[in-house]
């Protein structure tokens, strides 16, 4: 099953910590967003493998924009 992680709010992508193919476990930080003068980690809620990263650092994302697609393990 695939799971999508989407942006909760307008933000700028500060850093991306994983690549496609990487294994992640629930609680891992995959992306750091910057918004409201704060660095907000994007944390995965399930164990799985990263299928696709849809953003690069510097991108501006809006609420609902796709950030990461995961395959749950």
């Amino acid at each position, binding site marked *: 099953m695939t799971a999508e992680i989407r942006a909760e709010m307008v933000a700028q992508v500060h850093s991306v910590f994983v690549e496609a193919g990487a294994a992640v476990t629930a609680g891992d930080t995959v992306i750091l967003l910057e918004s409201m003068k704060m660095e907000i*980690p994007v944390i995965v809620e399930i164990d799985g493998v990263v299928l696709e990263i849809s953003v690069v650092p510097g991108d501006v994302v809006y609420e609902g924009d796709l950030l990461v697609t995961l395959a749950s393990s």
Partner: protein
Amino acid sequence: MGDAPQIDPRSPRVRLMAFFDPGTFETITPEDDRGVLVGMGRVDGTPVVAFATDPTVQGGAMGRDGCRAIVAAYDRAFADSCPVVGIWHSGGARLREGVASLDGVGRVFAAMTRISGKVPQISIVLGPAAGGAAYGPALTDIVILGPEGRIFVTGPEVIRSVTGEQVDMLRLGGPDPHGRRSGVVHVVAESDTEAFAEGRRLAHLLGRQGSLDLDAVVDTDLGSLLPESSKRAYDVHPLVDGFLDEGTAIELHPKWAPNIVTVLGRLGGRTVGVVANNPLRLGGCLDATSAEKASRFVRMCDAFAVPLVVLVDVPGYLPGVGQEWDGVVRRGAKLLHAFAECVVPRVTVVTRKAYGGAFVAMNSASLGATRVFAWPGAEVAVMGSVAAVRVLHRRRLAEASDEEARAQLELELAAEHEVISGGIARAVEMGVVDEVVSPNRTRSRAAQVLLDTPGVRGAHGNIPL
């Protein structure tokens, strides 16, 4: 029925016996075909009234006599001043009884509203709760949903025939939509057993609040639960759990409006409510939904004499067209109203920052906080200092030769601004912060304030805002 022993696990007797302490359940109404059974019993020794609808009779539909039984349960809970718990599994009003059943359901709603804010009302929804059976739980203080619980006004059949939309009961009114989207459900349980256990914990927290024992409040270094960088967002749950007595926290609405956290638990053995911004979600901003969630929680605590502790780390209101059109002004006003009218002891702790209107809304001194603490290094301001100098020194910054020079100038002006505006010391001088408190003294200082402040309760109901 007949010769067969009654062992249907959905029967009201079985469910009520599972809910109460063993051997304490007694019926108040007769066990017949009215579709509702009412009884009394104990929850960890505390008296509680409870009723259960009977899904083995007409799908648990509510008729006139069944509704009268529920009203009798409410009258009894009011007379005995104890919590009332409803176990719901019902298709709504009995079609066969026509308007008489509608009248009965309406009388249940009226009884729930009359008693609202006077005794705690908890609903445990274990099966479908449709139409009138949806609004019953919705009028109560706390709704717990079991894995098979489905709450909706109109079912999939009606939706399909009227609009053609295809949807099943799970997607329409199951744990996911009500736990995350609608805010109808406060607690989602993984099993019926867990639903009963959570209902018991909540009935005990609200029904027997205990008294605060200062000696039992051990200080820990809550500051170690914050990240090193003041810009970094973090999950506030460990801080809330660390503030409360170990293992006592029970979160309401954990997945709905997660940028604010509302938790019941105990401090020094006494029930308290905690409201906390969660920087991990939406940066901890207040928005329309989180303001509404918090205001209902604050009013519930106020009505039941539960003191409040408000942990503040808020960058402001979430900006955006969506928010304005969603009524952030109207719904945000509820939080101002809730805190301003609140009469229970209420302590605010600013852990990192409190900016602008959100600072006011989070139980500020101006809204009547009993006491406002700030941790050393916390910032209380109209806005962050960089944002402030961008407004105050717009022209000077525009005249900077290049981006690098502008950034440098911004930092210098921001540092200057912090000196002039005075930081937390100035906030103390102004009286908007009462006291700078070390993180490792916060539990005992907050407990002392709650202990020293007379316990009163708000004279109002708990409208499901």
